[in-house]
């Protein structure tokens, strides 16, 4: 086993309490970020689900010819942001009206003529459900001469969009604050660990170890501490998800990539903190 690795591992053996405390400190500070990620992710998903219901409905003139319909469908489907277009015939409209509005069943049953128009129901792609994008498509559809009216719940859409922006902004700020706190805690934990071994560093310098040689075991130790702390955070986050899901309400787990990012960030930060902390002691001798 190379010296640096042996030395880094023996640091855990020589001062297990300090190593343990560093891992716990890093683990819990990243756990806070994990919990926050879990919350933010689920709020985001909830908003997305509401947004999936964003729909543009274009009511069509009864006199529209099949050729016009065909051409319009092709054109609208090709518009940017459009996910799908469904053509609802007059009959289908009546059927679903009977289905959905039971209290008016009698009214719809007695009709000689079907008063309900045919329509296009247009759904937007995720990411194009902003008020602007929806409005653009709606205006474009409205331009067809055989389109009598276009509805897309503008006010409701504006509100959803505002909530999303607010949630996004709050998440960024709170997340940044948490990340900063985690960074400070990790840096402090690593610095304490390095400080506890400043004597070793000064002796290494004294007997002629090169800077790289002095640093390596500490960097490795920082990486291992960060990695273990990150893994602990991932485990705690996953545990919280399971407990919450089982006891309170169904939530979704954050994607695996996010978890990996948290662990990697913990590791990289452990490495950087070690580097800064060791340099400080190296320069003293």
């Amino acid at each position, binding site marked *: 086993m190379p010296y640096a690795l042996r030395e880094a591992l023996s640091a855990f053996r020589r001062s297990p309490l300090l190593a343990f405390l560093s891992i716990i400190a890093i683990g819990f500070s990243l756990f806070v970020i994990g919990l926050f990620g879990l919350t933010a992710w689920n709020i985001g998903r909830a908003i997305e689900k509401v947004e999936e219901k964003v729909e543009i409905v274009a009511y069509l003139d009864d006199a529209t010819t099949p050729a016009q319909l065909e051409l319009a469908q092709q054109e609208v489907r090709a518009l940017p942001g459009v996910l799908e277009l469904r053509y609802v015939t007059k009959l289908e409209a009546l059927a679903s009206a009977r289905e959905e509005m039971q209290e008016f069943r009698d009214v719809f049953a007695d009709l000689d003529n079907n008063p309900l128009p045919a329509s296009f129901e247009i759904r937007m792609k995720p990411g194009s459900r902003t008020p602007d994008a929806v409005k653009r498509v709606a205006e474009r559809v409205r331009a067809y001469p055989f389109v009598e009216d276009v509805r897309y719940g503008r006010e409701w859409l504006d509100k959803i969009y505002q909530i999303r922006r607010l949630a996004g902004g709050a998440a960024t700020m709170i997340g940044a604050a948490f990340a900063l706190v985690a960074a400070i805690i990790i840096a402090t934990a690593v610095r304490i660990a390095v400080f506890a071994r400043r004597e*070793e560093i000064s002796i290494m310098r*004294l007997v002629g*170890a090169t800077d790289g040689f002095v640093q390596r075991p500490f960097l490795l130790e920082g990486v291992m501490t960060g990695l273990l702390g990150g893994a602990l955070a991932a485990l705690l986050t996953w545990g919280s998800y399971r407990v919450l899901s089982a006891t309170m309400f169904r939530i979704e787990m954050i994607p695996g990539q996010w978890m990996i990012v948290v662990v990697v960030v913990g590791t990289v930060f452990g490495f950087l903190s070690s580097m800064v902390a060791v340099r400080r002691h190296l320069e003293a001798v």
Partner: protein
Amino acid sequence: MIKLTSVYKEYPRSGAALKDVSFHVQKGELVFLTGHSGAGKSTVMRLVQMAEQPSAGEVRVSGFSSRTIRRREIPFLRRKLGVVFQDFRLLRDRTAEQNVAFALEVTGVRRAEISQRVNRVLTQVGLSHKAQSFPDELSGGERQRVAIARALANEPLVLLADEPTGNLDEWAGRGVFDLFRDINALGMTVLMATHDLDLVRAHPEYRVIELAQGQVVYDSKAAAPAPHAAPVPVIPTTPAAPAAAAAGGADGQLAIGIFDPREG
């Protein structure tokens, strides 16, 4: 081996620590560096290790010059120096053997060679039977021997000792110094900072350089002590001093740049 030429050292807060210090320690010499606390002994030691740079002048140690040395070359200078301190600086969580081996591990010596060398130096300092003891289980004198063994492990050219007997009782101190004499007898250059004047007086055969307020006020190897040295040097007032001066002057080496009366 060690050559200081018109060395000045100033610290931003405490002011001048060394003023125009020059001396030359030749290969194979054992030299006492004496003076009161704050006279500049430790500063000289730090400059020789190149832990600090002089404010002016030049420090040369076994081919390295303070003027040209780069940070990444310092470790290679340090491998030619063995350093011993008053407070031993042993790692308490390692045995005597591991403390010595540490110096070799971190300088990249092959593992197969390490145990051989550790055994050899621990035997040399008379502690092979305590190899498995932790520093807290050793007496002060024994700890200092472990520190000396560590300093010798890398087979240095120079042994620097900063008050090595300062924390030891007289008996242990004598033992440690005898070890230095043995080491010196094998050809190693030894520069030992000490304020143990009894020890210095007891060994007039070795060269003495005395510092006061950052200046060399006496060098037994020089033709004569500095004429205008304000504080009366401690050494010349003792009966052993003439002998020390004689011994220093009689070893046939030329004293170089010890003190320039035109300055300082």
